[in-house]
Structures are given as structure tokens and as C-alpha cells.
């Protein structure tokens, strides 16, 4: 008898194009948008638009700016007619992420280190503070790799200032060496040294973009799971208003077949919905779903059960569809914001991250991140999976209790 409810829900969904789009197409589109944001703004590939004013406009500044221009993650725009205030205004308006001014009144680039003004001024907006270290890092890298003669010349100058005096012959040898370094650098060969030479990177998981896409897929999936589950569950209230519930309650199955049938439908709908999102993640962004299919299925089943149980609880606790939708929208938005479905949890302050553990979104994200980010086996995900399934079962049982109480009295 519960499968009759399931059948009615499936037919209802197939007849309702709006609901079909809301359930499957919209979440996938939303996910792709989120994934695009993540992939284009992650540390690996974040693009900065830089407005540049070269007041110095000499050979050294030209070499530095050419090197920066060649950096893939920077897009430099320079206009001789700009002045400092214009650069500030452009950054403030958001037209550019950050500004760079090569000061005419600063220390010279090829003999910096004195007590005058720095030769380079970075103009930034606090709202895009992350752009400062990114540009500074690229300037440092360009300075040492494209201008090794200038960097080395500055060091030797400082050495002479502080510790020793070179002979004439040594000066000539240094000048010759620096010229050679410059030629090598201009020929595109690696010469000199840089701070980056001291560093080597090692990733403990897959590529950063793929990880963030997987995170985004889980985040979007659970958010829409909640919305779609509530949308399906409140049909119980429509059936009550239409009198269908009265008809069923007079039958042998009673209210249980209604609640159970809807729960089964919501779980199946949830698995398909999450499946569409992760299929997009696999096909478009190379998130390796096929290699983790079993793990994905177990987590998705638990997540769908949690969303379905909570949605049924809400539908049975509320008396009207409007009331249920209002409560649901508020609760879903709050727990999704706290739980990391809207903004990644690692961007949140610690207090909010701690609060997030009280939401099912966080546990769903924890489980999906475990699979696709940290490549953990299923056994390591027992806690989030168990909690999600537990939330689902508790919600279901509470919904049954409330529905029976409402239908048959205490």
C-alpha cells in the first residue's frame, strides 16, 4: 500500500514540469555555477586584474612589468594617463582587484633597500585582501626570476655597504656576471636564485580544484535535498486538505502507509537528485565518482534518508502548507549557512564551524569530503553516515508518531 503512495508521488512529479526542473535541473545548474566559482577562484588558478601606473617608466620597471604581464594568473592594465588617484578610484569601484604603482619618488628598483619610500606601492581594497599576498608573491617571483641581475646587484651593493669593499677588478667581474645573468634571464633560462627555491609543495589529497568541486557538489546536493524533500513531504498537507488523507485513514493501512510511502519516495528522489549533481561533477570536473561508487551510494542513501526524515517530521508537525514552507525555508537557510552548504566551512570562524556540527549539512559534507577529498574508506565514515541515518530514522519515527496522533487523536 505504501508503494501506491510512492506511485502517486512519481506520477505527480512526472506531470509537474516545474517540480521536475526544481528537483533535478536547477540543482545541477546551481552546482555548476558554484563549481565554476570554486575552480576559478581557488589558489591554483585565481585570476587577478591589476591596474598599473608606471610613474618611473624606465628600463628596470619595464622589465619587471613585462615579467608580471607574462604571469598567467595576472592580467595587467596600464594607462599612461592614469594618476595615483585614478588607480585608487578604479580599485575602490571594483573595476580592478588591485592596483600597482611604480613610484617615481621611491627608492630606485635597482638600488632599493635604503630609507626612502618603497619603489612599489600596492593599492588594495580590504574586501579583496587575499589579492595582496598573491600580487606580492608574484612580484617577488618576477623580481628574482626576470631581474636576477638587479636583485643580485642590490645584494652586492648591500654587501659592500655593510661588510666589505670590492676591488676594481672585482667590480668589473661582478658587472660582467650580472650582464650575463640578465642575458640568460632574457633568453628565458633559469638563473639566479629566489625565495621559492627554498620551498617544495606536497599535496595530501587530489588537486585543489577537484577537491573544491567535490565539496561544492556535496554542499549543493544536501541543500537541494532538503528543499526537494520538504516540497515532496508537504504534499501530505495538500492531501489532507483535499480529503485524500481522510479516505486513506478510513482504510486498513491508515496513516502509516502515507508516511512510509512518502518517505520511500523522498529517499529515492534524493538519490536520483544527488546522482545528477555528482554525475555533472564527474563529467565536467573529473570528480572520480565511478571509483567511489559504493561509498557515494551509501553516503547518499544516508543523506537522503536524513533529509526525508526531517522533511516528513516538518510536514506532520505543521498544519498548513504555508506554515510548513515558511518554517522549512527559514530552517533550511539557517542550517545550510551554518553547515557549509553556502559558504565553505574552512572560510568560517571557529565558533561557526563548531555550531555547524549541529547540522546535518556538516555531516553530509564531512562524509562526501571523506570520499572525494580525503579518499577515506567507508569504515572511516561510519560516524557521519551513522548520524545521518540516525537523523533520518528519528525524523521518520517522530513523523509517524505525530501523524498518528493528528489522525487518530491521543
Amino acid at each position, binding site marked *: *500500500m505504501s508503494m501506491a503512495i510512492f506511485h502517486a508521488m512519481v506520477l505527480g512529479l512526472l*506531470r509537474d514540469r516545474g517540480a521536475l526542473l526544481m528537483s533535478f535541473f536547477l540543482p545541477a545548474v546551481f552546482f555548476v555555477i558554484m563549481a565554476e566559482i570554486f575552480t576559478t577562484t581557488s589558489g591554483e588558478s585565481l585570476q587577478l586584474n591589476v591596474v598599473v601606473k608606471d610613474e618611473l617608466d624606465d628600463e628596470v620597471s619595464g622589465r619587471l612589468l613585462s615579467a608580471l604581464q607574462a604571469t598567467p594568473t595576472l592580467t595587467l592594465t596600464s594607462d599612461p594617463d592614469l594618476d595615483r588617484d585614478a588607480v585608487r578610484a578604479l580599485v575602490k569601484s571594483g573595476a580592478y582587484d588591485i592596483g600597482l604603482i611604480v613610484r617615481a619618488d621611491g627608492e630606485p628598483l635597482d638600488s632599493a633597500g635604503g630609507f626612502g619610500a618603497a619603489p612599489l606601492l600596492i593599492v588594495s581594497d580590504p574586501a579583496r585582501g587575499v589579492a595582496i599576498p598573491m600580487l606580492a608573491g608574484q612580484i617577488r617571483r618576477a623580481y628574482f626570476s626576470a631581474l636576477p641581475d638587479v636583485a643580485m646587484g642590490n645584494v652586492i651593493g648591500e654587501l659592500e655597504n655593510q661588510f666589505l669593499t670590492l676591488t676594481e677588478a672585482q667590480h668589473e667581474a661582478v658587472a660582467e656576471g650580472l650582464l650575463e645573468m640578465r642575458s640568460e634571464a632574457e633568453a628565458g633560462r633559469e638563473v639566479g636564485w629566489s625565495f621559492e627555491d627554498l620551498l617544495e609543495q606536497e599535496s595530501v589529497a587530489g588537486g585543489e580544484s577537484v577537491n573544491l568541486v567535490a565539496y561544492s557538489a556535496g554542499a549543493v546536493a544536501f541543500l537541494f535535498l532538503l528543499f526537494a524533500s520538504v516540497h515532496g513531504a508537504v504534499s501530505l498537507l495538500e492531501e489532507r486538505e*483535499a480529503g*485524500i488523507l*481522510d*479516505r486513506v485513514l*478510513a482504510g486498513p*493501512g491508515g496513516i502509516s502507509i502515507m508516511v512510509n510511502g512518502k518517505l520511500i519516495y523522498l529517499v529515492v528522489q534524493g538519490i536520483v537528485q544527488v546522482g545528477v549533481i555528482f554525475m555533472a561533477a564527474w563529467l565536467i570536473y573529473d570528480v572520480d565518482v565511478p571509483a567511489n561508487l559504493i561509498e557515494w551510494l551509501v553516503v547518499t542513501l544516508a543523506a537522503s534518508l536524513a533529509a526525508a526524515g526531517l522533511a516528513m517530521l516538518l510536514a506532520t508537525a505543521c498544519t498548513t502548507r504555508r506554515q510548513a514552507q515558511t518554517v522549512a525555508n527559514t530552517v533550511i537557510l539557517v542550517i545550510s549557512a551554518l553547515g557549509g552548504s553556502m559558504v565553505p566551512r574552512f572560510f568560517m570562524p571557529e565558533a561557526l564551524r563548531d555550531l555547524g556540527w549541529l547540522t546535518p549539512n556538516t555531516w553530509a559534507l564531512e562524509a562526501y569530503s571523506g570520499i572525494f577529498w580525503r579518499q577515506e574508506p567507508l569504515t572511516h565514515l561510519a560516524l557521519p553516515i551513522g548520524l545521518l541515518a540516525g537523523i533520518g530514522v528519528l525524523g521518520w519515527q517522530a513523523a509517524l508518531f505525530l501523524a498518528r496522533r493528528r489522525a*487518530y487523536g491521543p
Partner: protein
Amino acid sequence: MPTATEQTTPPLLQLDGVRVDLDGRSVLNDVSMSVAGGEVVVLLGPNGAGKTTLLSLACGRRAPDAGRVRLAGHDPRTESSVRRQLGFVPQHVALYQHLSVVENLSVLGRMMGVARGDLAGRVAEALDWSGLADRARDRVGTLSGGMRRRLNIVASLLHEPALLLLDEPTVGVDVAARERVHELLRRQRSQGLGILLTTHDLPQATELADRVVMLVDGSVRLSGVPGKLIQDTFADKRELTVTLAQPATDPQSRTLRDAGLTPGRGGLTWYGAADNEHADARRWDDRLQEMALAIAEIRVRAPTLEGVYLRLTGEELDL
């Protein structure tokens, strides 16, 4: 005296001394009644009389505070399997508007426990009963009000219940559609189905009822075969309705009561019995004018169930 049907068939639904309290007041008080197979029992009563509560008891959705409810000899509240014997037609058209006629029947049949193997046959039968075979693939939302009402009823018959409860089954339908619903119900009754229906439609009650139960303020005030109720109330007299142009004063009201009239709600309409259509109308006209009462209408007609109801409750039913 029990009717012939009651004597030969054990009751499908039996209420004995049932009392239901709600928010500190009795919604039903010492109600006893029964419905047997192959009979139509019509439950009449003004709004708030307890009709819906009585149906809830029969469906097992509510437990009585006192007394006993039995459906085919079992408690419908605690023994859910006995509810297979029951079909319930809600007052609303309780159908999925976005599904077709045949889809509705299939889904609702399975909800009521019809086995997959039997479903196609039952659906075909229901389409035949309702006269909707040629509209089987149409969505319910596109059907007329009368068609929906018929579908609403046959959807409750798919699991072949022994007793059908109907809550206002013809509200808002035209005369032709109502007649088709009656035809459907008569056909089911002839096949042995017990029917308990609530209605405000007194002509419908007269036409369909084998027995009528009149509930007023939670109590059964009259119960029996319509013809006998009319006979008991009016004997060989006619039904008299006096409508005043303005309410009677207290002394005038006392006089009217002494003359055997019952006031309706609002005090403008009074109900009673008359001996002879024309002579009595003239006699009442003279008498009321003597009492200085302004008369809007005096009506004397053959007694009806409506007259019984009006004399009992003083309240007209909304049609």
C-alpha cells in the same frame, strides 16, 4: 420496531450508547444506531449536530468516551484490518487532480489494499459504474463536477467494502448529476452494500433512505423509515408552514405554541400540522390576523421528511 432488513442481516456498523466529549461538552450523547448490509441509512442534522464525529467513530479515527462502536463485529480503531470492510467518501472530491481517471483509481485502489492482480478488473468495473470509461485517460481536473463526484464515490468501492460511508456526497452538483449519483448508490445497495450517508439534502434523504437518523445537539432525536416518521409526525394531517413578516411578541409566541406550532430559528417561521389544505390556510390566516400578526406566507402541503425535520429542529437545512 426493527425493519425487515435489520431482522435478516447482522449490522455492519453498530453504535451502542456512544458518548463523545470535546472541549468539555458532549458532541455525541448516548447515540445508538446501526447500519445493515443492503440498506441506506441517512444521517440528518444541522451543522454541529455530531454527524462528522459519528463518521470518525465509524472509521476508527476517534474512540468514544463511553459506549461501543463495532464495524462488522470488531473495533475499527484497534483492529485496523476490519477497516477493509469500509469505504469512505469524503465531502471533498478527494482525488489527485493532476492524475487521470484510471491512474486515480489504480493508485487509490492500491492504497486501499487491492491486490495488483485484481486491480485492472476492479478499475474497469469502477469505470463502468461511474460511466467514465470514455474519459478514463483524462485528467480529473478536466472532468465536470458531477463526474468527479461519481469518481469520488467509485474510488471508495474498489476494495469491495461491505459498508460505504459518504459525507455529503452530492454537495455542489446539479440535479442531473445528483440523479446519476443516486442511481450509482441504489445499484450498490441492491448488491448488498450497506450505506451510511450524511446530507443536508432532504429530498435526497427521502429518495434514498431506507432509514433516517436525525441527530440534534449530539443526540438521536428521531430514527426510522421515512414514511413511518412522516406518518408518526403528521398522521393524516398536512404540513403547515407559517412565515411572519415580523417576529411575534412573547404573548403572540405563547399563543402560537399553544396552537401547536413550533418556531423556527429567528422566530419568523413556524411549523405545524393542518387538517385540510385550503380550509386550514384560511382558518390560520383569520386567526393570525386576529392576533395582529403580519403574515408573509401560509403554506399547507403534503407532509414530507423536511416537515418532520423542521418540526423537530425548527431549522431549515442548507441545500
